């Protein structure tokens, strides 16, 4: 069993062949977009927090990890010149992966037009390099699949999520990797997750991750929403119910570890098996963390309906609600509503999801890719809040 991917210099395998134009700060976003528009297969991203570094390391780790993601063939980093999180710093770290990386600085080049012009020159070389990369056959053991859900309702614990769990078990059994990023959606489900931990240390890490996230959402005197209106309209009553439905995505195999997301590091998926990722449940920000951790594809389940795409990681939408599927079929890659209707079993849909993952890995475009959904955002974990709440990263 195999798929057709792109081998990268560090031995990782990509399923897409993007040239990434990364503006390290938002001031150069339009410049990055104009440079990227000059060649086919290039995508421009930036981050909208800050270019200041101390205290904002989670942003740096995300940008570096995204640049290193195997779906990216080559990277041009664009900077203004006065950033702390500057183009050279980001570029050099991405280059540790061995792929072609260059960086340009607007203040050195003398403004907008010379920067765009130099960027286009570099991209014309990079596009030749990317064209020279071709797909070849890799075993399923090379798959690294991220998992997330959104627009959740009560159908997801019955249909889409357990079906995704079947596909995840198939990936893990083939020697591949899968991981789930939804720390808040483990609140109330940690007893189920810790039973699957490979050892007591991993069980401790799971409890710690969940307890930390719970603290961040339970600050006395501060009302903060963690479940959307659609969740409640869809019949979900508490975070525990949402969590217990959400974790069905993770299948049944042992949990090998919790991947760290902190000022110190953003840990990549280190090997085969199933992992949990610390981070956030905010959709697109979570996708970027998973991209930085090495995800080639993200499988995304929804009940209410969703249209999400990420700049460099294809998104497979699995729809759990039969009526939502009828209404939004053009945005859904897999209909798991057949389980609710009693027309298909969880296992049958799980096998279809596994087959779809491999087709998308080999180049088939997802619905979100066909529509050009390619959002990029990063998540900043505020170290001041964690310090005040007494949260430590490990």
């Amino acid at each position: 069993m195999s798929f057709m991917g792109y081998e990268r210099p560090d031995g990782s395998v990509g399923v897409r062949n993007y040239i990434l134009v990364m503006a390290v700060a938002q001031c150069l976003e339009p410049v990055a977009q104009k440079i990227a528009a000059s060649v086919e297969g290039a995508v421009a991203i930036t981050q909208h927090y800050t270019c200041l570094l101390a205290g904002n390391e989670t942003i740096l780790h995300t940008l570096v990890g995204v640049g290193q993601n195997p779906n990216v063939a080559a990277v041009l980093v664009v900077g203004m010149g006065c950033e702390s999180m500057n183009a050279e710093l980001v570029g050099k770290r991405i280059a540790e992966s061995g792929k072609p990386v260059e960086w340009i600085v607007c203040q050195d080049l003398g403004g907008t037009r010379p920067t765009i012009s130099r960027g286009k020159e570099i991209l014309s070389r990079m596009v030749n390099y990317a064209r020279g990369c071709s797909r070849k056959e890799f075993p399923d053991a090379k798959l690294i699949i991220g998992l997330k859900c959104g627009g959740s309702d009560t159908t997801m614990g019955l249909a889409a999520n357990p079906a995704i769990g079947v596909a995840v078990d198939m990936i893990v059994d083939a020697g591949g990797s899968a991981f789930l990023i939804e720390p808040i959606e483990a609140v109330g489900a940690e007893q189920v997750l810790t039973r699957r931990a490979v050892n007591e240390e991993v069980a401790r890490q799971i409890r710690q991750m969940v307890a930390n996230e719970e603290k961040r959402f339970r600050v006395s005197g501060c009302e903060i929403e963690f479940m959307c209106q659609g969740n409640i309209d869809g019949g979900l009553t508490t975070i525990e119910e949402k969590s217990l439905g959400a974790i069905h995505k993770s299948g049944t195999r042992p949990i090998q570890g919790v991947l760290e997301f902190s000022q110190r590091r953003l840990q990549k998926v280190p090997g085969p098996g199933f992992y949990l990722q610390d981070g956030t449940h905010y959709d697109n920000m979570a996708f970027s963390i998973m991209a930085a951790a090495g995800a080639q594809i993200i499988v995304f389940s929804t009940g209410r309906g969703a249209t999400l795409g990420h700049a460099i990681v294809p998104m497979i939408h699995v729809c759990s609600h039969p009526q939502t599927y009828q209404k939004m079929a053009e945005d859904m890659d897999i209909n798991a509503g057949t389980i609710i209707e009693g027309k298909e079993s969880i296992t049958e849909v799980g096998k279809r999801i596994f087959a779809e993952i491999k087709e998308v890995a080999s180049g088939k475009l997802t619905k979100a890719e066909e529509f050009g959904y390619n959002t990029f955002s990063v998540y900043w974990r505020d170290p001041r809040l964690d310090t005040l709440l007494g949260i430590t990263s490990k």
Partner: protein
Amino acid sequence: MKRAIRMHPHDNVVTALASLSAGEKVQVVSAAQEPLQILEANKEIPFGHKIALTKINPGDHILKYGEIIGIADQMIQPGDHVHIHNVESTRLQIPKEVKEREG
């Protein structure tokens, strides 16, 4: 007859697999789709929402998937709609603003 699913034998709530009107009878099935019993909805239940299978006293756990999903904050009768108006989380409370939005 419309169906409602009980995910685990320990559960005291079931999930409606179709929208129900008040007084409508529903076939309760197990996770493996075996018929278990007939239940009558005491009021309108939207698709995907929960119905009490048994009497649940204030302070009792609400069980779904065989796990605790919350705690009853008032008396719940078999056939009642079980949702944010009569259940509280044991972990994180939904902000008051959201509950009021729901009406």
